[in-house]
């Protein structure tokens, strides 16, 4: 503790204070509205996000601490091939909003849906499927949140000199607090601040890396001379072609099915906002991915030794910050990556809580014919959000090895589970209950098993297996099982009116 840098703490404390302030502010402003339809207000913000906020919250939730620490560390090692691969993420925002944005928005208004699981339940008329979806969301989200906590706290410790636990306390409790106090609307607004801070952080770090490295020209000249392979797309074999293919699937195309992204389609105000968000989101996500990885490459001007001497790619960015930034500005430099971490945590936390409150608790109450009072719902929603947050926080204090295994499964597992169920469910009349159950269950199991055992086909990442198996199961179920009831289909796929 004694060798901590107090100058690094102040900006961070101020930033965290603003985040909590936003949570309390949102809570106050909405206090009256909360009474009428609490669950919708709390978990989705009552359909009133503007295009800018929609874009920022989608990008901020999608961009995690690893995009800011592990990613650029890899860029330092691999070179421009890593940017070439990372740039596929420019598709992530416009694809999910362009394909699901309006569809989900209209269906959610029709069914009063608040979660993606609500829509899946209506479409396939299956409580088993909905429970499975809610379970997958809570399990994988908790693991991902833990990883974000750990990544953020490690970075904090490495850069400021204070302890890991203190970092966790500082930003961990803050994110849990503002998320449970303010709900989705607070998440969206804080995400927007976080996204702005991430961009400022990138520019700041880039500037000081260029300064400390002796200018752009000399850094590039040294890369040309000492690391010519960094200027090749395949980076002398460090960046195999198969990796490009699987990254397109894993962080590009299939991200459209991530529930934390799709749920944002429920939250915006009107179609103008959606169109704006597609454009803004693409600009921002490209800026971040290219900017931070480019900074990672240029960090060669600052860190000139071998990778081993720095102890792995995860240490590259912390070391760069400490070496290149003036002491007084270190606190600002780590706000960016920490903002990436807390904005992902808050986005996942609110969706995980909605899965428990809306998809499990309220559904069971509804079946029993009980309507919980507004006060009870308010208390429950806030406490469930807080409890999940605190549990994950405690796991992050001493993460068990199991959590790393689940986290490794999480991203691809969520994609495998939801990709075909959402894509085919919302756009294909033949999609039915049996297909969706087989696809979500079978695909996820196949994905987790093959990844757990390290089985690969042609050396490709297991997402290729998961997504293929889940498609085959879906088609099998669609042709073997009964078609969905006509009255359900009529709601999802309106018929041509008789009279024109």
């Amino acid at each position, binding site marked *: 503790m004694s060798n901590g840098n107090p100058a690094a703490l102040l900006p961070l404390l101020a930033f965290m204070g603003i985040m909590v302030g936003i949570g309390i502010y949102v809570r106050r402003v909405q206090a009256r509205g909360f009474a009428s339809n609490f669950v919708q207000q709390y978990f989705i913000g009552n359909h009133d996000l503007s295009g800018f906020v929609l874009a920022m919250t989608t990008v901020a939730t999608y961009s995690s601490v690893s995009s800011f620490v592990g990613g650029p560390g890899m860029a330092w090692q691999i070179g*421009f091939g890593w940017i070439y691969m990372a*740039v596929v993420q420019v*598709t992530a925002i416009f694809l999910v909003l362009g394909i699901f944005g309006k569809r989900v928005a209209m269906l959610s208004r029709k069914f009063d849906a608040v979660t993606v699981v609500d829509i899946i339940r209506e479409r396939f008329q299956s409580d088993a499927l909905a429970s499975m979806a809610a379970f997958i969301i809570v399990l994988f989200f908790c693991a991902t949140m833990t990883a974000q906590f750990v990544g953020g706290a490690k970075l904090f410790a490495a850069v400021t000199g204070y302890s890991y636990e203190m970092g966790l306390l500082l930003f961990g409790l803050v994110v849990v607090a503002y998320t449970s106090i303010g709900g989705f609307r607070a998440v969206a607004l804080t995400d927007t601040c976080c996204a702005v801070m991430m961009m400022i952080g990138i520019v700041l770090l880039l500037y000081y890396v260029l300064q400390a490295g002796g200018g752009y020209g000399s850094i590039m000249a040294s890369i040309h001379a000492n690391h010519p392979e960094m200027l090749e797309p395949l980076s002398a074999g460090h960046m195999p072609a198969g990796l490009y293919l699987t990254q397109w699937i894993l962080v590009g195309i299939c991200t459209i099915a991530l529930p934390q992204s799709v749920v944002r389609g429920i939250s915006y105000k009107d179609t103008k906002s959606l169109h704006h968000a597609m454009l803004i989101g693409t*600009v921002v996500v490209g800026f971040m991915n290219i900017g931070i990885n480019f900074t990672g490459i240029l960090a060669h001007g600052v860190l000139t030794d071998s990778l081993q001497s720095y102890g792995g790619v995860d240490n590259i960015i912390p070391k760069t910050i400490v070496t290149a930034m003036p002491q007084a500005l270190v606190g600002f430099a780590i706000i960016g990556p920490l903002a990436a971490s807390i904005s992902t945590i808050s986005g996942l936390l609110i969706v995980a809580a909605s899965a428990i409150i809306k998809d499990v608790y309220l559904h069971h109450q509804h079946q029993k014919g009980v309507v919980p009072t507004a006060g009870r719902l308010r208390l429950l929603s806030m406490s469930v959000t807080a409890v999940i947050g605190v549990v994950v926080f405690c796991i992050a204090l001493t993460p068990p090895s199991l959590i790393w295994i689940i986290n490794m499964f999480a991203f691809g597992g969520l994609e495998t589970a939801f990709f075909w169920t959402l894509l085919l469910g919302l756009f294909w009349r033949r999609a039915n209950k049996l297909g969706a159950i087989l696809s979500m269950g079978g695909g996820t199991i196949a994905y987790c098993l093959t990844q757990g055992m390290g089985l690969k086909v042609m050396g490709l990442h297991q997402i290729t297996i998961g997504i293929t198996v889940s498609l085959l199961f879906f088609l099998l179920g669609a042709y073997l099982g009964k078609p969905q009831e006509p009255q359900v289909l009529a709601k999802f796929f309106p018929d041509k009116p008789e009279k024109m």
Partner: protein
Amino acid sequence: MSEYEKYQQIKREARWTGLALFVLILFWLLAGFGLSGLPGEVLGMPLWAVTSSVGVWFFAILLVKLLTSLVFQDMELDEEKEAKQHE
């Protein structure tokens, strides 16, 4: 727009978004692997490194701009609200 027309429009938009993805993948292949053999430098970087990063990004922005101005249409998301407006 009737509900039927809206769904047709949404399907159309989804299809064009998928097509935009396909075009972007082609551009990405061309801008990166396609140009990687070429000599020439831009700002000290090989040509392909520029076209495959900033180039792909700008191209994606252009595609989205085209999508939202040519294919995507504004529509009322709430059926009830729309029904009221027509009364």
